[in-house]
């Protein structure tokens, strides 16, 4: 499963994309996996408001996951 990061969050976790081999059941599960990857990962998700998109559509952390989903995490948007 492809997981992508943007903006400040991308800088904090130090990468724009990772591949997660074992697909968690839902976003909650994925967040546990990501936060266990290091202090900067835990902090990035604990310190910031984080928005979630699955397959390019905004959703919440109860969203169920499939192995071929693209999951994105990013800070509140600031375009326009």
């Amino acid at each position: 499963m492809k997981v992508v990061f943007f903006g400040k969050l991308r800088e904090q976790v130090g990468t724009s994309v990772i591949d997660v081999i074992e697909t968690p059941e839902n976003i909650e599960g994925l967040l546990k996996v990501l936060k266990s990857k290091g202090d900067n990962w835990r902090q990035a998700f604990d310190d910031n408001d984080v928005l979630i998109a699955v397959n390019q559509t905004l959703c919440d952390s109860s969203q169920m996951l499939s192995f071929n989903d693209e999951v994105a995490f990013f800070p509140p948007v600031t375009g326009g």
Partner: protein
Amino acid sequence: MSNAIGSSPQIRVSVQFEDFNLGDEYQEIKNRDQGQGAVVTFSGLVRDNNLGKNVKGLFLEHYPAMTQKCLIDICEQACKRWELAAVSVIHRVGELSLNEQIVFVGVSAKHRKSAFEGCEFIMDYLKTQAPFWKKERFADGEAWVDAKQSDQHAANKW
């Protein structure tokens, strides 16, 4: 607006590095809308912020796979809520200098109220939903722009 696409002829959306010309975009809307009575345009520009740090420019990051889809979705919502004849959205990405144009929204409709509301709705939704992130460049560094509560309130009012 060379890479413009839309789900219907009413809607044109472009995410691009290049600048745009407001007069040309206005003309394009008029060519497309079959003689409507009202056209409202919005353009947003890079400005110096309120915090006393002199902004030299911006870096605009986005989520390419999602951006255009999200903008089209916002325009489609606007077309469902108001009777709009033509809608254009252009959003620039990459490095931008002070006073450069960032975003254009143009809407034409038979009635001015629909054109005003449709245009403001698209901007309010774009500000809170479209996956863009601004990093401000100063003389002595850079910082990601924080999202504003006032933008969330503006989007919630619709």
